[in-house]
Structures are given as C-alpha cells and as structure tokens.
C-alpha cells in the first residue's frame, strides 16, 4: 500500500492570488485538505486603541481607514452611532444620498470581489472586464463625493455634498452601462462550463456551519440564511428592500449572489433617485455623551460599532466587529476542510471575500 504522508502546506503571506497578507496552513492528505489554520498579525494596527480618547472628528477619519474597500459603510455606521447617542436628526435628502453612496460602494466592492475570484481561477478575461466596469462605479463615486477611496462623505447631521443635476444625469447613464455590462458577465459566469467545474460544489458551507461561525453577508445568504441588517434600517425600509438568498452554499452561489446584489443595488439607487426629496442636506447638532451599538450592512455583511462617548463628543470606548472576522472564520474552518484539491484552496478562500485589513484592524 502506498504510504500517505500528512503534510502541512503553508500558503502566504505573500501569495500571487491574494491581495492581502495572511497565512493559511493546510493539513493535507494527498490533495485533500483535512484542516486549515490561519496565522494573522500582518495587518494588526490597533485602530481601536488609537481611537480611544480622541474627538469624533478624528475618529471619523480613522473609522474610514479600518477598511479602504468599504470605507463608506464604516463612515456611515460610525456617524449613525454618533447621531444616535447625541440625538441628531438627519434631513431626508441626506438620508437618501447616504443610501445612494453606500449602494455605489457596494457595487464597486462586489465587482472587486468577483474580479479577484475570476482572477484566482485564472479567468483573466472576465476578471479584466469586471475591473474595468468597477472603474465606472468609482467614477460615479468620485463625482458625487470628490474622492475615490477615503471619502468622509457623511458627517453628523447630514452629508457634505449635494447631488448636482449633471452628476445625476451622469450617474443614470453610468448605472445603465454598468447594468448592461454586468448582465453580460453574469451570463458568462453562469453558463461557462469551465467556470462551473471550478465553482459548483466546491467549498460548501452548510447552513448549520454558517450559524456556528456566525457567518454574515453574501457568505451567509448564499447558504440560505436570510439575514441582512439593511432590513432594519429606516431609509432602506422606505425603499422596500428584501434580501436575496441562495441555498447551495458553494463558490458559484456566493459569486452569483454578489452579481445579484449588484443589480439589486442598481435598483435601489434608481428608486432613491426617483423619490429623492428636496431640501437641505445638512442639519445641525452637537455630538454628546452616550452609549450605543450601531449596525449596518457592509458589502461583506453585518458591521457593528459599539460606541461610548463623553459629553464633548470624545470617544471613551469603542469596539468594532467587522464582517470579515466571521466570514474568514467560516471559510477557513468549514469551507476549506474537505476541499478535494489544493488548487481550490485559493479560490475557496477568495470566494468568501476575505478582507484582512478589516479582520485585524
């Protein structure tokens, strides 16, 4: 009988397929992965510790820099928390503009996630198409907020800039263009026979496992858990938002769900634009003392901030729970064991859309 040796194969920290450094050690027998272990610490900057004792004006900028891909939602959740503790009301128009920017951010983040997946399974054509489409979404964001990545668009009591008429027209054209393009790529992805062999039935996360690791966002929704924090958000409720769910729980389901959410976001932006109320975009108010837990749906799932502030609006204590923490856990401890080929390890890892910067803060 052939002797099979158990080997521990480390991947990373610098790996051609991964955007960020992490080290995954896979225990393998033959090609089959038996267990995986993650080694982190490459991105630990201690943001929560830096934030403590600083005024909200500084924490606003630090919060954005927890994650550069989904900076809008960090901004939004922190500001909504500060508004909740100090009782500041937001004008209607500003609330709608926040949703527009947040959904644009989701579009670009999902496009980037699907780009990395296609790049990882070496489908470079599709990957480049998706990356190019993302640039259009970035243009929209830049036109509205004035910056590409760290925007600091939302402030307590409103937003910084109004939507000008020519920006609105450009946004509508760009959204149509993105919708057309993504529609094409979705069909390419869904029907490609080679893609199917790399995605269908690979990296399965069952619903029960997803619950144990507390998976959130597209990773959980692709495993049949219909949870979305946007359901509890007042502005989204006005827009009749309902989450998309898929039952398969494999790579294919996760990527297709993200494509689906891109269309959903485009629909939400259209609805926002059509009922965008007139009025001011900035109210007034001072940030004060209080304690709250503020939640929001980041592109990757539920993001929550625990905020404790004093009467001058300084942050006394803060704790951030980012979606990647749960999703990477679900990915490495449930999806990776059982993967039948080492070549799939990278693609399974990327399919959960891991963001190490969020994960370690």
């Amino acid at each position: 009988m052939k002797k099979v040796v158990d080997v521990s194969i480390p991947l990373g920290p610098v790996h051609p397929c991964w955007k960020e450094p992490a080290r995954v050690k896979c225990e393998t027998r033959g090609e089959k992965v038996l267990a995986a272990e993650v080694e982190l610490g490459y991105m630990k900057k201690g943001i929560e510790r830096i934030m403590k004792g600083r005024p909200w004006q500084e924490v606003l900028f630090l919060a954005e820099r927890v994650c550069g891909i989904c900076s809008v939602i960090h901004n939004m959740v922190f500001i909504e928390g500060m508004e909740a503790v100090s009782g500041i009301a937001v004008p209607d128009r500003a609330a709608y503009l926040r949703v527009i920017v947040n959904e644009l951010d989701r579009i670009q983040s999902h496009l980037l996630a699907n780009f990395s997946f296609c790049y990882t399974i070496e489908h470079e054509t599709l990957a480049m198409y998706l990356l190019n489409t993302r640039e259009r979404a970035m243009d929209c964001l830049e036109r509205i907020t004035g910056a590409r990545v760290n925007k600091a668009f939302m402030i307590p009591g409103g937003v910084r800039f109004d939507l000008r008429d020519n920006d609105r027209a450009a946004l509508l054209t760009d959204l149509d263009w993105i919708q057309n393009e993504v529609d094409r790529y979705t069909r390419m992805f869904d029907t490609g026979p080679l893609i199917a062999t790399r995605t269908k039935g690979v990296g399965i996360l069952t619903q029960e496992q997803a619950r144990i690791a507390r998976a959130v966002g597209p990773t959980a929704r692709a495993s049949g858990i219909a949870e979305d924090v946007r359901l509890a958000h007042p502005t989204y409720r006005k827009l009749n938002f309902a989450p998309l769910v898929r039952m398969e729980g494999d790579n294919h389901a996760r990527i297709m769900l993200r494509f689906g959410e891109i269309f959903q976001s485009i629909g939400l932006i259209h609805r926002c634009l059509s009922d965008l109320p007139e009025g001011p975009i900035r109210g007034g108010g001072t940030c004060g003392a209080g304690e709250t837990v503020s939640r929001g749906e980041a592109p990757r799932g539920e993001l929550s901030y625990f905020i404790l502030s004093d009467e001058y609006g300084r942050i006394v204590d803060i704790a951030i729970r980012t979606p990647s923490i749960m999703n990477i856990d679900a990915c490495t401890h449930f999806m990776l064991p059982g993967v039948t080929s080492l070549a799939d390890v990278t693609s399974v890892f990327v399919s959960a859309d891991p963001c190490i910067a969020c994960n370690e803060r």
Partner: protein
Amino acid sequence: MGIYQEKDLRMLKYHILVSPRHDHAVRDVAGILGMGVQPLRRLLIERLDMQYLENLAGRYDQWVEHGDRKDPLDRALGRELFTRYLPLVDSSGMDLILAEARASVEAGIPASEAATRARARLAEVLRP
C-alpha cells in the same frame, strides 16, 4: 536563511484577546468554567488559531443566542460551546463528563450541585 516564518505568535494572540469585545467574552467563558481569566487566556492562546480568537466574541454570542437550547445541564456546562463553537475538548470527553453529571443527578444530588462538580471536572480536563 532558516525557517524564518515560524514565529512566536503568543504576544500577537494576546493583543487580539484584550480588545473590549473579546475581553467580555473571555470573562464570561471564564465564569462558566470557574477559571481565572489569565489561565483561560493562556489556554485559548495555546489551543486555538488566530482566526478562532478573532471570532471568539462572535462565536460566543452565537452560542448564547442559539446553542444548547434543549437541555439545562448542557447549557450550564456549555456542551456545544466547548466542542463546536470553541473546540477545546473533543465531544467524547465532554459526553463522559455529562454522563457522570446525569448519573449523579439521578442518584439524588441536586442539579446545581452536579453542574458545579461537572464544571470543576471540565476545568480539570482543560488545564494543560
């Protein structure tokens, strides 16, 4: 050059465990086990990898909400908590302790007393 990538991660793991949410979770788990906080931290650092530690608070909250809903004794001992949510002991060892506790309840010892004893056993098993 040597194996320069294998590094002592204990300090980094400790940094993860002392952030506010994780600290609460660790304190609660220590309460369940009747263990000191610092020995429990050491145990967690030795047995779990960094991603488990990052998600410690998430998994613990999930257990509080959904885990061990059926049996009060399971709940008191955290059967699923220590075997599935935070895999520190294997399920056979856990079942052994639980079976003992059940037997002593049947023998007439009050449930709370039995649970306390079983916890002490569990803490014993966990201690390195």
